[in-house]
Each structure stands twice: as structure tokens, then as C-alpha cells.
């Protein structure tokens, strides 16, 4: 199919999605899509991602469109360079379709924290799509694009994939270059992928993966292949079920979704084993020290001096300019995390908070290493404790919002690859199962997910 035709279809779907008020996009144009299509049609076929339209979370920079992180402080900011991930996708024949809405600076679990308004869940408009990559997730779930890039710091792709009933893959830390990803928590941030199926997500991940001389934290190990190994079943695999991830108060719908997934894993010939990850219960508080500390540092550059918003009144000195610019430019959740992050790194508090959190982080990671070293190949858990919640339900209760990420945070702290696979619906709302793999074992994870994708319906009502 000609890219030009694909581009026209995408433009039509974007127009429709905008008109129903999903609010999932921040910037797109038919003109830019046409130019992308012309570029792709001029490329020698066949390209691995020929004419595949990709939506980009707005914290991934491109030279063609603004990259705002859904924040007032970067309103209209256009980067003079492309993210490495974008360069690689374009070189593989993909078309950049649009910039997607998100929680401001990727801080949130519901995409209600955008300075440009909340994103609606395409399955139920009264509910949130999850976050922080809610715009990207909604665009894939609404069928506008087959794949989209999001970013993870503590579950920001897996959790919205679960809420929207699509595939969401977080690679190992260091697998995909962060060059051009606007930093939130640098030791946690991973460009991650949403897909309408495992194969499309795997292809995009394969193209983006591999060492980048512009990111000193990328791993030198070889890139991922473009397609997972095609397994007939799961014979020979040991799948661990960490008991801490199946609490008694788990939502019954989520419980039912996981039960049928576990049954499918057994039916496909895998051995099931109950395991324990005792330190995972500290993941949320640990995460909410490490991530804000790094965020407070990373966001210091938004000072009104060189680019972005500058608020200055007559008679202001430079400190006034900082206060006014950052006070008006950042939303309340971003300001809250900057304050927390500044506090935990302060002299006299460092050891009690940041130092301690790093020690607990090491224990959390060590739990996973031990389980995998004992012969477990993959772990299976719910992605979220509940299906998508109502917009506004947790907006005034940050801590309850933070616990929406209770099953995804520990994996981010450990740097491991993990994904959410849709495994049915409960009262119409999608349920996601999370598959977790050892460091750099994405291939095994994606191959197993593809087997489950064949035998577990993503849309069937569970009970």
C-alpha cells in the first residue's frame, strides 16, 4: 500500500477522534502526514516498518512539531534535533503521525495532569485512559494508529495499555536510547511501545533498540530482532506467580482475567510456580523518592533563560524571574514532585530518604534476580489492581493515584523488561496481564506473549 493512502486514512481518523473529544493529540497536520508519506514512498522498498504510522508521546522531541511535555512551560517549543528513536523509526519507513497528549512531564497515572486537558478512555469516555502516556494509548485503542510511542518511568505505558485494552511493552533499561526523550527520572526512563498486537509492538521495539553513542546508558548488546520467535506453545517454560502481586483485595474482574490467563499458560504446557518478591511492597514509596529527586534535578533547566516560557515583570531580579516562570509554567503535580525531590536531596535528609531509597531499590532488584536465577523464566501478574477508574475519582488524592502503579513500579526500579497484554474485559472494561522477564530477555517475553495473544481473547467478558 502506498504511504500516501495510509497518511490520508490516518488524517481522517485523527480528525474524527479529535471531533469526538478524546483530546488524545496535541499536534498533528494533514500536511505533515503528506510530507511523511512522500518521504516514505520515495524510499527503496521493502522497509521493515513501511508506511507504519506512529503516534509520539509529547516528551519525545522532533524537529517538525512542538514538544511540550503537555506543559505550559514548553508551550510552542520546537526541538532542533530528533530523538534517536524517531530517527531510527523514520529510517525504517515509519511515518510520524502526531504528538500525543500526556500527563505533564509524564507525572501522573490518569492523563488528567495535562496542561491541555484530560484524555478520555476510548472504551468509556467517563473513565481515564491511564497515564502518563494516556494520549498514545487512547490513539492505539481507538484504532487511529497501529502503534504509538510512550515512555515509562514507573509504569506509564503498561498501566494505560491495561486500562485501554492494548499491548504495552517496556524494554530493559538501556535497550532503547533516551536521547531526545525529555527526562523525568533518568535512571528509570524508558521509551516504550503501544501496539494493537504483539507483532507490531515488537517490530517497533526492534527498530528502536540498540546502542546509541549519544546515550551513555544504552547497553552495547545487539539490537532486538524485528519479530519475536514463533513458538507453538509454552512447553518448557517456568512461569512464576509472585504472591505479593495477588492480594486478597484484588478487583474481582482483574482476578478473573488473571485466572483465565493462568489457565491458558498451564494449558500451553508451561510449568507454574508460586514465588515471592518480598521487597516489592516498598516499591511505591521507594519510587516516589527516587523519581521526584531525579525530576527536581532534570526540571531545573526550565528556568526561562534560554527557551520556553519566561515570566518577568518590571523590577524583577533573576530570582523573581525563576519564581514567576516556574510557578506559572508548571502544574500542581509537577510542582509537588519538584518540592519532594528537592527535599529528599537536601543536606541532612539525603541519607534518610534518597540514600535509603537507593538501598531499598537494590533489594527490590535483588528479589527479581534471585527468582530468575532459581529457574523461573517469566513472571505473570496483574498490570493494575483495578480496571480504568473514573475521571476525577483520584484527582484530589495523590497517594491513592500513586497506588494505581503498585504492580508496575518495582519492575521499573529493577530496570527489567515487562509488558501488559489484554486478557479480556470485566463489565466492559479491559483487564491487563503483566509479563515480566529477566534483564534483556525481551525476546522470550514477546514470544510467550504472542502465544497467549493467540489463545486468550482480549475483548471477551470474564467472570
Amino acid at each position: 500500500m502506498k504511504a500516501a493512502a495510509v497518511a490520508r486514512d490516518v488524517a481522517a481518523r485523527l480528525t474524527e477522534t479529535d471531533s469526538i473529544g478524546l483530546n488524545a493529540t496535541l499536534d498533528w497536520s494533514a500536511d505533515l502526514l503528506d510530507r511523511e508519506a512522500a518521504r516514505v514512498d520515495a524510499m527503496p522498498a521493502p522497509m521493515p516498518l513501511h508506511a507504519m504510522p506512529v503516534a509520539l508521546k509529547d516528551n519525545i522531541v522532533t524537529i517538525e512539531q512542538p514538544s511540550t511535555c503537555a506543559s505550559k512551560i514548553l508551550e510552542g517549543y520546537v526541538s532542533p534535533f530528533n530523538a534517536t528513536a524517531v530517527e531510527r523509526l523514520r529510517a525504517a519507513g515509519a511515518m510520524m503521525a502526531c504528538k500525543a497528549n500526556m500527563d505533564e512531564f509524564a507525572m501522573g497515572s490518569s492523563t488528567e495532569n495535562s496542561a491541555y486537558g484530560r484524555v478520555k478512555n476510548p472504551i468509556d469516555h467517563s473513565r481515564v485512559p491511564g497515564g502518563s502516556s494516556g494520549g498514545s494509548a487512547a490513539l492505539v485503542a481507538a484504532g487511529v494508529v497501529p502503534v504509538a510511542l510512550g515512555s515509562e518511568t514507573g509504569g506509564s505505558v503498561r498501566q494505560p495499555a491495561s486500562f485501554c485494552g492494548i499491548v504495552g511493552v517496556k524494554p530493559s533499561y538501556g535497550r532503547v536510547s533516551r536521547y531526545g526523550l525529555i527526562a523525568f527520572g533518568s535512571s528509570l526512563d524508558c521509551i516504550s511501545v503501544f501496539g494493537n498486537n504483539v507483532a507490531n509492538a515488537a517490530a517497533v521495539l526492534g527498530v528502536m533498540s540498540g546502542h546509541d553513542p549519544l546515550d551513555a546508558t544504552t547497553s552495547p548488546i545487539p539490537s532486538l530482532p524485528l519479530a519475536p520467535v514463533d513458538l507453538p506453545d509454552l512447553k518448557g517454560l517456568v512461569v512464576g506467580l509472585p504472591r505479593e502481586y495477588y492480594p486478597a483485595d484484588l478487583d474481582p474482574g482483574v482476578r478473573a482475567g488473571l485466572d483465565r490467563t493462568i489457565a491458558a499458560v498451564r494449558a500451553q504446557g508451561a510449568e507454574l510456580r508460586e514465588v515471592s518478591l518480598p521487597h516489592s511492597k516498598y516499591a511505591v514509596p521507594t519510587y516516589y523518592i527516587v523519581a521526584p529527586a531525579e525530576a527536581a534535578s532534570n526540571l531545573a533547566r526550565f528556568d526561562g533563560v534560554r527557551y520556553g516560557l519566561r515570566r518577568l515583570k518590571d523590577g524583577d531580579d533573576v530570582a523573581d524571574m525563576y519564581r514567576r516562570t516556574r510557578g506559572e509554567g508548571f502544574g500542581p503535580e509537577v510542582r509537588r514532585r519538584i518540592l519532594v525531590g528537592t527535599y529528599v536531596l537536601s543536606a541532612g535528609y539525603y541519607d534518610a530518604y534518597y540514600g535509603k531509597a537507593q538501598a531499598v531499590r537494590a533489594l527490590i532488584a535483588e528479589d527479581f534476580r534471585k527468582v530468575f536465577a532459581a529457574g523461573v523464566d517469566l513472571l505473570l501478574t496483574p498490570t493494575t489492581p483495578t480496571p480504568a477508574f473514573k475521571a476525577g475519582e483520584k484527582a484530589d488524592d495523590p497517594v491513592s493515584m500513586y497506588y494505581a502503579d503498585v504492580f508496575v513500579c518495582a519492575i521499573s526500579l529493577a530496570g527489567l523488561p515487562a509488558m501488559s497484554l489484554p486478557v479480556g474485559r470485566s463489565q466492559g472494561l479491559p483487564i491487563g496481564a503483566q509479563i515480566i522477564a529477566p534483564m534483556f530477555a525481551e525476546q522470550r517475553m514477546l514470544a510467550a506473549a504472542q502465544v497467549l495473544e493467540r489463545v486468550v481473547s482480549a475483548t471477551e467478558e470474564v467472570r
Partner: protein
Amino acid sequence: MTWECVIGLEVHVQLGTNTKMFCAAANSYGEPPNTLVDPYTLGLPGALPVPNAEAVRLGTRAALALGCTVHPVSIFARKHYFYPDLPKGYQISQFEEPLATKGAVNIESPERGPISIGVTRLHLEEDAGKSLHDRLPGRTAVDLNRAGVPLAEIVSEPDMRSAAEARAYLTLLRQLLVYAGVSECSMEKGTLRVDANVSVRRLGEPKFGAKAEVKNLNSFANVERAIEVERARQIATLEASGRIAQETRLFNANTGTTKALRSKEESHDYRYFPDPDLPPLVLEQRWIDEQRATLPELPAAKRARFASVYGLPAYHAATLTLEQPVATFFEKTVLAGADAKAAADWILETVLTVYNESGTFPVTPDRLAALVLLVKAGTVSKQAAKAVYGELLTTSDEPADIANRLGLVQVSDAGALGKWVDEVLAAHPGEVARFKGGEAKLIGFLVGQVMKKSGGKADPKAVQPVLQEKLSG
């Protein structure tokens, strides 16, 4: 009451790399403002740091030249403060685990003789940009050309006790760093910058007094002055029963005073933490050893070798080894056949004047050696050689050819000398008679007259025997 001054120095040295510490923007001086910038330098969102291997190599060699232990693992950390010339809101530096620690250099103290000054640590970091307060009326302009330039920060132990010792330490430090090829170390261009930590205590008191960190020192002379001034201020304060605040003070070279900038209580909380964008800096021990093995011969070793191998007096050996190019010039001259002491004299008396002014050598070592050899062979006199040297600077002729052309080749042939001797004896019968009457010292007068008659061409060593022979005949 006797007071003792205690001084420690913090020295920042820009490393002479082609590009900046963490990006590919050029490391250069004197370019139009904000032309040496890239996404990283500007702190643009999404840009990341990548360590410059050459900066790490130069930092390592600097540390080894100062006798430090270079650590196989060191950590880059972020140091936070808000300032318009600090693009990211933090500076990447090293904090708890620096590149190198525990070095020492040996200086000659004017008061205490030979002493050792400890080097606490050397760490790598990136420079900030420049805020220009006098460029636009009522506004501050920012130039980020310097932002991200690689720096080695070298912190000394509080081992110095006088301004003169501080100066001796700085002089040696600069000499070592220039020898090691890591930096040009120019205070004028800001490639070497110094802050001084100064305190005083009663002599014999084991505890240090509260210290002031004195900044804005733009020459070695001003470092010395500022320490003197600060020392005197602190003593006067204490003697008037005042108290010294731990604070940062700026030296004003015009008034010759220091002024408080900010106190420790209101100083920044830098919120250091390991930079998550940069993995630990890991250096193989074998690579570190290789850097040590390939360091050039350092000044102290060179000085000792010049004294022992070439038999040079201490002053000559020290002066010739102050700067590596001069030492090399000397050795090349000797290699070309010149006598070492004579070559050293020539360099100290003539060549250095030009080198110190221009940084270049007026003659090649080969031609200087040829001239030294002419003097040694007696072909030209020392006096005449000066004239030949003058011609060396303006022509490309060989020294022997110049001496011939200028008629400066010495005459030592007895026949030719005899003619001048006969004329002198005939012209001075009185002196001849007095000499014969026992006034032996008049021989000097007569030699001088022969030299004069010859127009300076007569070899004075050959004149005397001819004179003696004719006078006794």
C-alpha cells in the same frame, strides 16, 4: 602574640581538549558569544552528556603528574544551583568518588626550606558559562561558549603557611601541568583559576581557625597580595577581640582589600547526587599505568639530570628546566656538538630573552651549536661571537661564513702577530723599558695594545707568548 597563617588552594584548570567535557561542541577561546554551543551545552530538553575520552585522559595525566592515586572507578555527580550561565541548573562534577586523591608536590619555601604540599583530590567537571554584567545596560548577558569546557579541580591540603609558599606551590603546579601537556594554564585567559582558603591561628594552636574562601584572584601576584591582605585582616580582627566568620570573600585588586560575598550559613545546598545519565567512570589499571609510563620527564627529574649528566650549576639546571621547550632546545644544542656549559650560558644570556617575550626561538639549536663550537675552537673570540650571533638572527648563513665575511676570525699565527707586536713595541718604548725594569704587570697593557692594533682579530692567548719572546730577545 605570634600568629600562623594556614592556606589551602583550590585550582581549576581547563583541559586542552578539542571538544567539551560531555558533548561535541568545540572547546575554544575568544570566539563570538554563543557560537560554541550545541543542544547539550544549551541544556535543551532531551540532550544527554557523553564523557569526552580525551578529557579523561588529560585529567588522569594531570593527576599522575601531581603524584595522585588515580581510581579505577569514579562517579560523576550533579551539583545544583540556579544561575543564568548554568544551563541545566546543575553542573556535572565529581563529589564523593573523585578521579584521583592523595597526591603531593615538593616546593622550596622561602621561610621553611623544602616542604611537601599535599594534593587532597583532583576531580573532573564541566565549566559554567559567563555572565556579562557590563555588556548591556541594566541587563545581564550570558555567553555559553565556556559552558561545558572540561575542568580539573585540584584541591590542596591546608599545608601552606605564607603567601610566598602559596605562590611557590602555584608556580610548581602550573609547571607540572604544562609539562604534562594537559593545559596551557593561563590566568589571563582563565584556563587556570585560583581560590584561596585562608585562616589564622595562634602559633602552636592545634585547631584551625575559621577560614575565608577568597575569590576573584586573577594573577599569581594577586593571589599573593590577597592572602597577605586577608591574613592581616583576620589577625587585626582577632586582636581587636573580633570573630572570623566562615565566608566567601572577593578580592578587589584596585583597593587591595577583601569583601564578604556570602556567609556559609546562606551558602548553597548543592544537593549532590550521582548523575543517572552517566555510568561510573571505569578505567583499567593497565591503562592508568600506561598513562603514568608515558608522562614526559617532569621538572624535578629533568633538573637533577641536567645537573648530573651535563655538570651544570644548579641555577643553570633550574632555569633551563622551567619550561619544557627551553630544556629541549638546550639538549638539541648539546646534541649538535656544543659544550653543555657554554650552550647553557648562551641560552640564558641571549636566547631566553627572545623566548620569554615571544615564545619562539630566534635561532635553531644546530646554528647555535656551530657558533659555540667556533668559540671553543678559538676561531672567533667570545666578543666577536656576539657580533656573529647578531647576524644569525637576520641571515640564514652558517656562523663560520658570517665570521669570515665580517673578518672576525682570530689571528693566532705567530708571523702575522709578530708584525703587530713589533709596531706596538716600537710605539711604546717607555713601557717596554719599565717592563724590562721589572714592572711585569705592564704585559697586560701591551697585549691590549696589540689587540687594538689588530682590530680585535688577534687571539689574546697567542699574543702573549709572541710578546714575551720579543721582549726577552
